[in-house]
């Protein structure tokens, strides 16, 4: 009883395994994978573009909720996507292991024996050669020297050759599939060990060190990264320059940076690097990319008591073609000992910045992304900014709820060119001093990347080999001609009389796809028959000359 249950369970498992590793299942899984990846391409993804997902939420609130709950905005980390590719790779491995064993067995095996009826092969040719069967077999062997050949003599003295070639096809096939598994493993490993940090760096700042995650504006890392063991290096931005074509299309971004890593961290040596798009800095096992840029309007606030504060806060481009930017530069009022009063007297300068101003009445927009005629259109807000409220807030905006609740009020609205000033009712002045540039740097760490590349190269090579090499067989059956003298006679008389010959029958079979073997087979069969005739001619001329000399 027990054993039968056990057996049934075993049979069930075996059948499931067979089903899973069958080609048909693999095909279905391939389709499922393609289908499952499709929403990842069509729908906005949280990981790629949050703003697009939010727009989608605004436009189709109900749909978005449903889609989000099934992970359609997070396809590539969803359970169902993972389930499909895990199943596919299990199926793949289940197919690969027995195939590898089979391949190793085949590598040692001799080519299969010549079938009885070669005329039934997909490729077939026949002819006669003026050579005895043994010599023809030798000729054929020479011609087929790059093939794996096994030779046989049948009972009636007929010689047969079986030859096979293209064993590398299966090798390529196995390499390709194993490399895919390797690719999956290395990409997975990389996901665990990677990190990526974003940092806005302003020209002339003292610089930034990859010493901890707190130095970054945003930091995203794999599970095994706790932020304590980042690759040590420091860098600073000396200059940043963008050139635009007259159309407004950027021609080049160029960040002149300096960095230290390894020993130079100790001795304060800085090396320079010309950081551009397509030219990242590779240092200490990490890569540093230039991924964005923008403007920093500089404001100086002079408070009624005469104290001045100058702030450089980066503003965020809202339109990358004109570099119209928005942001919020926030000031604490100095010289107020009462914390409550200080917090209620904060200032924020928010609004728009245009590198090349274009005014429609008082409405500011930007005509061109380069810094030709900078202007800001700002609201000066006074009141409570909520900076100490414990809630994180964006450096690019003020907390709207504080404006709504009346704790933060607009006290001025003005357009300012460089050097112009607003005077507030309480005597505070706000001056627009000028503009500086900032660059967004991305630091990436992908320790498995090089192994991914190795497997990717193996994928291409394996695929190329498995698709271009044909596994094919050719068989020859060489029968001594019935009309000539007998076998034994042929051996002795062929040279002198030239009457002995053999009829040759050739069959061919492509073991994989038939496509393309036809031409090769035809050529090969022709050559075999011709070389038989040729070597016979050469043989007889040799004997003639020998005869004469003796």
């Amino acid at each position, binding site marked *: 009883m027990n054993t039968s249950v056990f057996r049934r369970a075993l049979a069930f498992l075996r059948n499931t395994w067979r089903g899973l590793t069958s080609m048909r299942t693999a095909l279905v899984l391939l389709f499922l994978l393609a289908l499952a990846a499709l929403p*990842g391409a069509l729908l906005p993804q949280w990981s790629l573009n949050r703003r697009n997902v939010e727009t989608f939420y605004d436009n189709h609130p109900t749909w978005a909720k449903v889609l989000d709950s099934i992970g359609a905005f997070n396809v590539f980390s969803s359970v169902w996507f993972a389930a499909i590719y895990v199943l596919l790779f299990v199926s793949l491995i289940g197919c690969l292991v027995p195939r590898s064993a089979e391949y190793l067995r085949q590598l040692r095996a001799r080519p299969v024996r010549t079938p009885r009826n070669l005329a039934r092969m997909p490729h077939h040719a026949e002819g006669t050669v003026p050579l005895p069967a043994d010599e023809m077999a030798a000729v054929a062997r020479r011609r087929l020297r790059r093939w794996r050949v096994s030779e046989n003599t049948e009972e009636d003295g007929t010689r047969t050759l079986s030859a096979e070639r293209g064993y590398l096809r299966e090798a390529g096939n196995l390499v390709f599939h194993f490399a895919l598994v390797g690719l999956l493993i290395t990409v997975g490993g990389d996901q665990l060990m990677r990190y990526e940090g974003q940092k806005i760096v302003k020209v002339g700042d003292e610089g930034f060190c990859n010493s901890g995650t707190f130095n970054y504006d945003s930091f995203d890392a794999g599970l095994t990264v706790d932020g304590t063991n980042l690759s040590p290096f420091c860098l600073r931005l000396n200059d940043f320059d963008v050139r635009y074509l007259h159309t407004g299309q950027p*021609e080049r971004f160029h960040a002149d940076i300096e960095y230290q890593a390894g020993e130079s961290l100790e001795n304060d040596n800085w090396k320079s690097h010309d950081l551009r798009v397509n030219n990242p800095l590779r240092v200490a096992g990490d890569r540093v990319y230039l991924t964005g840029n923008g403007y920093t309007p500089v404001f100086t606030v002079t408070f009624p008591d005469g104290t001045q504060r100058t702030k450089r806060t980066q503003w965020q481009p809202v339109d990358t073609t004109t570099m119209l930017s928005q942001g919020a530069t926030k000031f604490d009022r100095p010289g107020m000992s009462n914390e409550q009063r200080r917090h209620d007297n904060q200032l924020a300068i928010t609004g728009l910045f245009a590198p090349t101003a274009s005014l429609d009445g008082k409405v500011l927009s930007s005509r061109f992304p380069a810094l030709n005629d900078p202007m800001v259109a700002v609201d000066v807000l006074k009141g409570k900014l909520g900076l100490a409220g414990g809630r994180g807030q964006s450096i690019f905006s003020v907390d709207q709820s504080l404006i709504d609740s009346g704790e933060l009020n607009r006290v001025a609205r003005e357009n300012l060119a460089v050097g112009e000033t607003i005077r507030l009712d309480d005597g505070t002045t706000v001056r627009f001093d000028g503009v500086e540039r900032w660059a967004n740097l991305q630091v990436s760490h992908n320790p498995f990347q090089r192994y991914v590349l190795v497997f990717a190269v193996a994928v291409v090579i394996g695929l190329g080999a498995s698709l*271009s090499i044909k596994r094919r067989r050719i068989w020859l059956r060489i029968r001594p001609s019935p009309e000539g003298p007998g076998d034994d006679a042929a051996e002795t008389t062929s040279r002198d009389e030239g009457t002995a010959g053999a009829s040759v029958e050739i069959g061919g079979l492509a073991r994989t796809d038939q496509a393309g073997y036809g031409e090769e087979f035809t050529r090969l069969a022709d050559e075999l028959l011709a070389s038989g005739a040729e070597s016979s001619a050469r043989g007889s001329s040799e004997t003639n000359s020998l005869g004469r000399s003796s």
Partner: protein
Amino acid sequence: MVNQALSNLSDMAFATSVVVYIFAMLLYFAEFASGKATETAERGAAEPARATVGVGGVATQEPPARPTVGRLEPEPRKPWSERFGGMAVAVTVLGVLVHAFSLVTRGMAVGRVPWGNMYEFGSAICLVAVIAWLVVLYRQSRSIRKPTTAPKLRGLGGFVLLPATLLLFLSGTALYATASQLQPALRSYWIWIHVSAAIVSTGVLMFAGVASVLFLVRLRSENDPARPGGIGSRLPSSQVLDRFAYRATVLIMPVWTFAIIAGAMWAEAAWGRFWGWDPKETCSLIAWIVYAAYLHARATSGWRGTRAAWINILGLAVMIFNLFFINIVISGLHSYAGL
């Protein structure tokens, strides 16, 4: 920076090549349509033989008899289909030359690779597809041992030129972009490697997809002998068409794989990661998976033939979707179409 004269010349050559291709396409269709009488006879003879006949097959067409010296005798007139076909090939070659000239002058006008935006990309893909067609014809004309396919194949030129001309027309109108410099992200030697591999694969896969469509049309008429005539009956045998589709796909699959990997390597240098599920990356992978499914289907019993052909067509559909929809409609990192 942009040489306007050369750019204008390129535009003119582009327009000319479209016209020339349309003319060639009409000639091919004329050959295809007028070749009916010979087709039926030939079909009867060719059908039972395997498509991969070896030594047994000998070219059946006798070369036209030469006029004997001294006697002025008019050469025997070639059949109309033969004439149309010959002209069509000549016109196609002319079209390719003008088309290639258009791309080269475009590249010279802007001093960079001539595949920096959707217009140039589409144009280059068509050039590859048409050249692939000419290569097939050339190989065909060399191997005299395949009498079953040789004469029929040429008439199919129209089916290659039809999608190519459509894509060209679309590129030249809706996708047209004036000659200009590349944006910084595209300024890399990778544009030579990645984009050219993508162009070649797309062009050849387009060719393979057309072969699969024709295969299905042909199969329908083969399975339904009650309906003589029609397009299907004039096509080469389904075996030949299937083999074309397969060989083209097999040839180009490693190139397409390479194109994706080269893209990943470029992305590593330009965007800071080798793979980020950008819509274009995702869709390229989907196309790759579909073509992988096609290759597997060819090796799975019950999936060969019709089903495999549909998969190949699906692959082409994904490629076209990837080319247009992803670049134009969906915002991703590949959306620098100059639109």
